[in-house]
């Protein structure tokens, strides 16, 4: 990735999300220009069905500082969309497991009838192993499979 310019990197990550759109059957706008009352910003992508009821914006963070863009965060707050900053090294190319992991973490908020079949979040209680693993006790902790 070091041989690429910043613009090339962001375009490549945006393309990876367009690939995810096809492969995972999700709505993606990439690259995305975020327009808010106090200004605009170029972002990696917009996912209308994830992150929150109004969708989410994906911003970029890069080594070595991994500094988030506070202006993008502010603009997202203004228009009421969720915001996540992804490490461009980790999302440079489309990788199914990594992208699904992020999408599950962000949560699906779109039309229930159009929810992708790969999107499942199982919620349950995992018992504490305080009786030699011989069965579920009363105590336990909630787990969220896929998060």
């Amino acid at each position, binding site marked *: 990735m070091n041989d690429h310019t910043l613009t090339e990197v962001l375009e490549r990550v945006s393309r990876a999300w367009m690939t995810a759109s096809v492969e995972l059957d999700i709505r993606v706008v990439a690259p995305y220009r975020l327009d808010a009352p106090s200004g605009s910003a170029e972002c990696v992508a917009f996912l209308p069905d994830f*992150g*929150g009821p109004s969708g989410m914006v994906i911003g970029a*963070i890069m080594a*070595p*500082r*991994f*500094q*988030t863009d506070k202006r993008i*965060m502010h603009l997202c707050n203004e228009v009421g969309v*969720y*915001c*996540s*900053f*992804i*490490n461009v090294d*980790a999302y440079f190319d489309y990788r199914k497991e*990594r992208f699904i*992991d*992020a999408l599950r*973490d*962000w*949560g699906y*908020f779109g039309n229930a009838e159009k929810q992708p079949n790969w999107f499942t*979040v199982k*919620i349950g209680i995992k018992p504490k192993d305080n009786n030699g693993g011989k069965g579920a006790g009363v105590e336990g902790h*909630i787990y*969220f499979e896929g*998060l």
Partner: protein
Amino acid sequence: MASESEAVELLKKAGATIERIEAGHLPPNPHCYPHINFTTPTGAKGTIRIR
């Protein structure tokens, strides 16, 4: 609680891969606070809360 930059430095020193930095999620996700998602050198996933 660590700031964003402090947490980034801690994770870098630990050899972790920083995946995402994001605001708190809506339920049912339990991470309802600003956080960093990371992967350890052994492949374990984790989350660190930030200010």
